[in-house]
């Protein structure tokens, strides 16, 4: 070590310049920062779920549909000149937007009529005549009731469909989203109606916009807060500089490398900078505070740097390695955002270590021997005596108290739910959340599921037997799932034609397959050019698309309903079904991500245990090591169970981060303990740890809490949950490390030394 410090001292300026240039050069790539929000990134390229969904998009024209709704509270509801005119104009304006393929509204709904053998399919409302009559017709028309018009005739919706090729492009989603909002703003001023917007493209657009905001606003804010805190604590330029240099250099290098490797930021990885910062800060803080400790006690600056490095390099190396290994397991995931996170944090751990042992000491070595250290603006625990004694005298009491708290809180685990919901990821005051809430309240379900039923035989969807099965299925679906509000498929058009063209028949559906085929031909022939039924059936007429509108529900319920649907068709019929649509793949995605994270975390814990076992060569020490790190996760999960917060992606990530950071403190604690216990008794050893490392542990936790608290202001709920969970868990870990751990060690020490 002496030689290394001499080396650093010789080349300190060179080292500083060298690393600065490298980081600066890498940072040039930051100008290529890009965001992505597409569903595709969440799936392994070979994923069957993804393939099936893309097939669906190709054959059925996709499901990228915005819903715009508004309410007219006057006594005829929307069936007055003003509302109808608004719908007509909006339909027109939306159709004109680039990327929009089709718009369906109350006014352009293809209404079928047959009088005196004159069959017509035309826009339902083309002028302002007979609106009272139109109202009566609309409220009885199963094709639009509870989808385009509400039961009380007061709320109406317009659906805006993006073209299939463009719909999966989030830039198009965002463009159309913003354009629609623009148009709606204009009309709100004109008409005084309040408009609401929802639909999966709106959710996609919002996800990207929110992550952009978080990246652009919250991250810099976090940096400002940390800098401020460091200054308040240390009141010196060096005190701000050392940790900042390590954090910023690590953060810039990791981000630049990601961008150079072609990665884009998404809702998940937009948090990488804050994770990286939190990992980097621990190393720098321990080193810097150690330097302060030795500087106030030694003669030369060089001596202080030497001692600080000598006594901390091993724990810092260990913490970096455990973090790197822990997150490396994520790096093997086939889900890109997760592997990106793993790679980023692993490289962050290693880079932070490198910067901490090169640049940080080099900067410190520049200072003169007579550099005055200001007292830390904080309670000074570097000279505390008697804490060890306190622990030793009360060890059993401490352990029992913790045990009780632990059992009580851990019991909350029985209430814990792992669940998620993409719309609920947004706070109540966001556009999509408001939109979905309004639509569900007044009109129909805001979640859309696409069921593709495969008859496996060409033209078989024209069989009455098949169509009757669809009718039966719908009845049972409504019966079993109260959240389902509306269903539609080509079957409804055929039933309508039968009503209109063959009113004297008692059959809901014609028995004659040829008649069904001719109904479809007749309907097709009468649609205005541009409209067709191609999105309702496949070109072989062997697959039928059934669209379900259902209320927002948690992913676990989604998956249950999807399973029920597929099972129903499998068990009760000779046909098969496949549930598609973005709601469905979101549901699968949440589950697979949560599963991946839980697996990774478990693996990490296992690896750390093995590593610690190899180091301690003692099972009881290994247990003592792991307990203060796993307990916070368990305890927080228990608390969440009690207060009813479900565990979502944000929380799952939090567990990974907590593990990475909390372990560091424990490593520092243990390394100091084993060193001290060789020469001193237990009480003095504990005092030594408090004097030399506790400040770093406490201050790191404080700064991290401040950093993460910024994310509690995000509009993205998983970020908020992440912030709260992480802050609470880290502080719990600190208390466990500083109070429970010494108590447990005291008991063990007494046992060993009897």
């Amino acid at each position, binding site marked *: 070590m002496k030689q290394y410090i001499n080396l650093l001292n010789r080349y300190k300026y060179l080292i500083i310049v060298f690393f600065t240039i490298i980081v600066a050069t890498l940072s040039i790539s930051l100008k290529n920062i890009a965001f992505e929000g597409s569903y595709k990134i969440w799936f392994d390229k070979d994923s069957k779920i993804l393939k099936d969904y893309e097939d669906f998009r190709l054959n059925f024209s996709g499901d990228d549909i915005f819903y715009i709704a508004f309410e007219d509270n006057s006594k005829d509801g929307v069936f007055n000149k003003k509302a109808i005119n608004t719908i007509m104009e909006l339909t027109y304006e939306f159709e004109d937007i680039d990327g929009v393929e089709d718009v369906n509204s109350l006014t352009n709904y293809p209404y079928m009529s047959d009088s005196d053998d004159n069959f017509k399919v035309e826009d339902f409302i083309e002028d302002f005549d007979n609106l009272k009559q139109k109202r009566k017709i609309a409220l009885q028309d199963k094709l639009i009731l509870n989808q385009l018009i509400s039961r009380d005739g007061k709320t109406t919706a317009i659906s805006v469909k993006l073209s299939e090729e463009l719909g999966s492009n989030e830039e198009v989603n965002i463009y159309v989203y913003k354009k629609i909002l623009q148009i709606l703003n204009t009309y709100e001023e004109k008409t005084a109606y309040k408009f609401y917007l929802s639909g999966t493209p709106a959710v996609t657009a919002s996800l990207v916009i929110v992550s952009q905001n978080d990246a652009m606003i919250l991250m810099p804010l976090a940096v400002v807060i940390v800098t401020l805190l460091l200054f308040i604590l240390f009141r010196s330029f060096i005190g701000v500089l050392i940790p900042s240099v390590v954090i910023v250099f690590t953060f810039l290098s990791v981000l630049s490398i990601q961008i150079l490797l072609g990665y884009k930021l998404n809702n998940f990885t937009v948090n990488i900078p804050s994770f990286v910062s939190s990992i980097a800060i621990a190393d720098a803080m321990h080193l810097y505070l150690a330097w302060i400790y030795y500087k106030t006690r030694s003669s030369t600056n060089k001596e202080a740097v030497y001692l600080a490095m000598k006594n901390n390099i091993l724990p810092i190396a260990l913490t970096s390695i455990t973090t790197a290994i822990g997150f490396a397991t994520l790096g093997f995931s086939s889900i890109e955002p997760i592997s990106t996170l793993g790679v980023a944090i692993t490289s962050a751990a290693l880079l932070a270590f490198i910067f901490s042992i090169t640049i940080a000491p080099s900067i410190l070595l520049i200072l003169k021997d007579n550099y005055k250290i200001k007292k830390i603006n904080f309670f000074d625990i570097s000279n505390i005596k008697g804490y060890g004694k306190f622990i030793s005298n009360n060890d059993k009491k401490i352990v029992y108290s913790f045990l009780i708290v632990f059992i009580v809180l851990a019991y909350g685990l029985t209430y814990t739910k792992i669940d998620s919901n993409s719309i609920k990821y947004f706070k109540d005051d966001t556009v999509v959340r408001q939109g979905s809430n309004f639509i569900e309240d007044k009109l129909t379900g805001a979640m859309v599921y696409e069921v593709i039923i495969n008859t496996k035989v060409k*033209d078989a969807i024209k069989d009455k037997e098949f169509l009757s099965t669809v009718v039966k299925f719908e009845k049972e679906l409504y019966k079993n799932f109260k959240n389902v509000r509306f269903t539609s498929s080509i079957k409804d058009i055929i039933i309508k034609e039968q009503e209109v063209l063959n009113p004297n028949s008692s059959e809901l559906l014609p028995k*004659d397959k040829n008649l069904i085929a001719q109904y479809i031909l007749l309907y097709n022939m009468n649609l205005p050019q541009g409209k067709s039924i191609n999105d309702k059936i496949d070109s072989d007429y062997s697959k039928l698309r059934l669209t379900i509108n259902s209320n927002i529900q948690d992913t676990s319920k989604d998956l249950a309903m999807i399973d029920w649907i597929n099972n129903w068709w499998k068990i009760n019929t000779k046909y098969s079904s496949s549930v598609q649509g973005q709601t469905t793949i979101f549901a699968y995605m949440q589950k697979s991500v949560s599963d991946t994270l839980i697996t990774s975390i478990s693996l990490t814990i296992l690896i750390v245990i093995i590593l610690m076992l190899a180091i301690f060569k003692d099972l009881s020490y290994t247990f003592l090591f792991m307990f203060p790190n796993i307990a916070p996760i368990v305890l927080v999960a228990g608390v969440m169970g009690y207060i009813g917060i479900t565990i979502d992606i944000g929380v799952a990530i939090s567990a990974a981060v907590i593990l990475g950071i909390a372990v560091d403190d424990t490593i520092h604690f243990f390394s100091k303990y084993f060193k001290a216990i060789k020469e001193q008794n237990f009480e003095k050893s504990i005092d030594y740890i408090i004097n030399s490392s506790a400040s770093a542990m406490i201050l790191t936790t404080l700064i991290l809490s401040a950093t993460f608290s910024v994310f509690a202001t995000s509009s993205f709920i998983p970020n908020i949950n992440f912030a709260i969970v992480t802050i609470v868990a880290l502080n719990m870990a600190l208390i466990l490390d500083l109070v429970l751990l010494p108590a447990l060690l005291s008991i063990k020490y007494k046992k060993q030394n009897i």
Partner: protein
Amino acid sequence: MIKKLLLTIGLSTTLLMAQTARDIMQKVIDRDDGDKIITNMQMQLIDKAGHKRVRDMKTYSIDIGKDEKKLIFFLSPSDVKNTAFLTYDYNDDEKDDDQWLYLPALNKTKRIPASDKDSSFMGSDFSYFDMTKPNLNDFNFKIIKEAIVKRKWGNEDVWLIEILPKTKAISEETGYLKSVAYVKKENYMITRAKYYLRKAKRVKYMDVKKFQKIDGIDVATITTMTTKKGKRTLHKTVLIQSDVKMNQKSVTEDMFTTRTIEKGI
């Protein structure tokens, strides 16, 4: 003096040109496209994924004065076999064109009011308006330029004629904001066309892939119509006429009634 002369010449030429555009279109409409025709027609409907659906039909058409009547019998697919279609295309703009569709499975004939010419013909990319002769008085015509359309079988000299609906009502009725017709100078047939739809900025491209001379009459035997939005093809129709027979004695005026579509030929 010179100025006045040039102005007069310029004006007259312009007037001549304006006349010419409409004249050209008049000649397109008046062109002898044959009479008492029996043809087999195949319609291929191709979606954006490239999946194809095929309909086979047999058509009969007759000119009665300046009016035209057509019978179309579906031959396949089998579930629409014997479905039949009758149209009356009146030259007189006072009279509305008429269409009827016979559904054999229902044993009923439905009249389909043709006032909505914007509707698709047989579910294809052709609209009803595309398949009938337009009333020239509804439109303004302008020669955009003269050009050459390169074909496999040689080059075609064409006029590009812009066709603009005179009123918003006509635009709404036909479904078009404007169209551009490529008219062959050689025989006043439209060899290519672009249609700008009112709906959602779509554009349709019509192209004749094959011409044949049958009994001295030029016939477009393969025509495609592709609906696009921007660069993206939304849907395509290929219309193939085969076994085209002109001047068939068996085609008589009294055939073109609803009775025929119900009972068959």
